[in-house]
């Protein structure tokens, strides 16, 4: 039987010197669902997902992926297990072509098999609508297109768990619509953990929502539950819920 949760954490904690960025977070991520992680600026969202994929070492606590304790694995080993991660601050290979950017992402899994790397790159670029820019240098793209490229690099890894840190930040309205469609098309096969400030995107995509505040989980549940949750309304949604 396949477990419901693809990833769980126990007591995950991160201190930066005196700053408590995350404190004792117990978290469950349901397989095949889209889970949104929301919370005010500085709540500790990026820190939290950074500890899931191994980008930052945890001060203490444990991370389990597919039942395996991955707490002591370095980032590249966790990624190799099928976790893809996109940065909040765009991080692409700005000196290389889009094609090569996506190829590097695909090649890690497909290795020497040139044909399937090419095939993968073509299909991913088509999926995100960047095919006609394949030979452009990534650094020459608009900010929005660089964000999309970053998502493409995640997709090229065929992840089981796809973690996106504020992917729609700085995207135009039409690009956001495309992004929402893309996420919906992935859901089911791929588990998605989405950090998102845009509540409209959250409401359109999320099956589950977790709210972080001051480095702790404030609430978890379906969008409806979160919407009705008074603590959340008070702390965060307040105006957004009325809008």
């Amino acid at each position, binding site marked *: 039987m396949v477990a419901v949760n693809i990833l769980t954490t126990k007591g995950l904690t991160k201190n930066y010197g005196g700053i408590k960025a995350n404190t004792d977070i117990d978290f469950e991520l349901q397989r095949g669902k889209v889970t949104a992680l929301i919370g005010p600026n500085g709540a500790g969202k990026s820190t939290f997902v950074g500890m899931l994929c191994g980008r930052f070492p945890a001060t203490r606590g444990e991370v389990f992926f597919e039942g395996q304790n991955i707490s002591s694995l370095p980032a590249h080993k966790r990624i190799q297990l099928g976790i893809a991660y996109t940065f909040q601050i765009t991080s*692409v*290979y*700005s000196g*290389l072509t889009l094609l090569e950017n996506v190829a*590097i992402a695909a090649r*890690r899994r497909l290795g*020497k098999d040139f044909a399937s790397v090419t095939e993968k790159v073509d299909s991913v670029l088509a999926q995100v609508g960047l095919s006609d820019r394949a030979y452009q240098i990534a650094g020459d793209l608009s900010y929005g297109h660089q964000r999309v490229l970053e998502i493409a690099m995640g997709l090229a890894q065929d992840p089981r768990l796809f973690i996106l840190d504020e992917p729609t930040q700085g995207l135009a309205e039409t690009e956001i619509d495309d992004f929402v469609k893309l996420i919906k098309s992935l859901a089911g096969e791929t588990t998605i953990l989405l950090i998102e400030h845009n509540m409209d995107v959250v409401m359109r995509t999320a099956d589950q929502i977790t709210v972080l505040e001051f480095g702790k989980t404030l609430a978890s549940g379906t969008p409806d539950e979160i919407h009705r949750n008074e603590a959340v309304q008070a702390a965060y949604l307040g105006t957004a819920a009325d809008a």
Partner: protein
Amino acid sequence: MVNAHRSYILHISIIGMLAAMFFILPAYHVGNLSRIMVLAVYAMGFNVLFGYTGLLSLGHALFFATGMYGLGMAMNTFNIAAEPAMLIGGICAFLVSAVIGFLALRTSGVAFMIVTLMFAQAGYLTILYFGAYTRGDEGFVIPQADRMIAGIDITGETARYFSALFLFSVVFLLIMYLVRSPFGHTIVAIRENEERTRMLGYDTVRHKLAAVIISGTISGIAGAAYALLFGYAGATFATVQYSIFPLLWVLLGGAGTTLGPIIGTIFMFYLIDLSSTVTQAYMLIAGVVLVLLTLFAPQGLAGELRRRVFKWLP
């Protein structure tokens, strides 16, 4: 793949051109070119780390000298024949670069430059300290009679030229192959954005270590070949100057290009050669040209070629 074919033809033609030079050029230049080809092997080794992986070592003379002394001492102190001595030189450089890589890669950026510089300095001082065996600054001559490969006396101009060309060609083609391989693409990815590469699931530390070892071993083989072909090993080759040379060659020729090292080495060799016939202050002329080139062709000669004409250059 068309680009792969083009690049293959280009590399083979360059080797062919170098072979033809032997018959075209006067003896003086043939002698120079033998030297240049061996030094270009050193530059190619350096380029793997600096040009492709983006790690600037200021201590590559250590690897060059390790290969040189590995071979030289094997031959002179232990009376080992040239072929196994060559192998010993390579193995020594391999081991030293593995150890240095392991230690130095705990740092990055400027710290990496300083750590490699310090290790090379320590290596240089070690050579001086054991002057009884290494003959220190004075160095030692490898007897002409011992310098035979497969029964061929390589001290003659012809044999020496073609031995140098052979070594050059092997490394040249090896690197052409390497940079097109997944490993080559990955080290370029590390150069372009290491954190992104790590978060794409690559073991960046292991790749960087492999790059240091490949780079150091090739540099060591160049050092061993230099000692064998020109019959001399000395501590000068372990000085900072010899760590800076490959950097200049590669910068001039084009870092991160397969052609850059040979172009840069030829260019700089003749720059110094020609300007020293004109004036005593030849280093001044060399310096001015270097500054001009970095201003107007910051990607080096091959880099400019790639940017302007041949976009497909590897």
